[in-house]
């Protein structure tokens, strides 16, 4: 039986973009306000899972052709390398550096080494959440 999920699909198209952009907002807010890599990552995983649920798993797989295991590896690597970076300056592991810069359009922006660290966490969380759910969902026996 072929069912028609017109409502579901239309809403998903809109909602998933809102959730995705909110996830990116949370990720950047994370330094000095509530938010951060973990929350942002979970949010993004939520948006992607919404896509997987409303459309077909195989279809979304074509759209997002990433291997989540590799993403976990890269995420962890980014996080560690950010920490190791401080060893180059002779400080303790995971020492944080930050500086304020003037960027056109956005004005004064604070750039810190916490950001790439958080990016690593973000990638790991997205990939772990999706990997867990998909590994159960794809199992059709």
């Amino acid at each position: 039986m072929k069912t028609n999920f017109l409502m579901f699909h239309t809403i998903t198209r809109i909602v998933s973009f809102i959730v995705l952009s909110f996830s990116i907002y949370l990720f950047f807010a994370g330094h000095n306000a509530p938010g951060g890599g973990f929350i942002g990552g979970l949010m993004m995983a939520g948006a992607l899972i919404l896509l997987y649920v409303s459309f077909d798993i195989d279809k979304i797989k074509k759209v997002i052709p990433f291997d989540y295991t590799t993403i976990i590896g890269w995420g962890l690597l980014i996080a560690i390398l950010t920490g190791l970076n401080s060893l180059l300056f002779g400080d303790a592991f995971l020492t944080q550096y930050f500086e304020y810069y003037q960027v056109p359009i956005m004005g004064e922006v604070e750039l810190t080494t916490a950001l790439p660290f958080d990016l690593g966490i973000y990638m790991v969380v997205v990939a772990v959440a999706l990997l867990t759910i998909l590994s159960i969902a794809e199992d059709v026996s």
Partner: protein
Amino acid sequence: MEILMIFTSGIIIAVATYLFLTRSLLRVVFGVVMLSHGVHLLILTLSGLQTGAPPLLTENADAYTDPLPQAVILTAIVISFGMTAFLLVLAYRTYQDHGTDDLEELRGNADE
């Protein structure tokens, strides 16, 4: 307020204990989830329910809350997230291979 919260977390942990002792694989997973919630609530309560501004550089307030329990709980949440994810997959595989989710039937015998 502290007393109320302690009772709440006590009830949650009691529910978790009940779920741990049930026979279904999935309910044990729910027990794990409940236990971690109860414990996180307990950490927050035992370190003192404080009122004050968030401990951030930008705020100018008289009193700040203690950031440590929050950091601890956040870490513990992340860890319990990973553990639960793993346990769910493991429970599913166990169920699939054994064809049952009844722990009584999964006991096994002494001389394997």
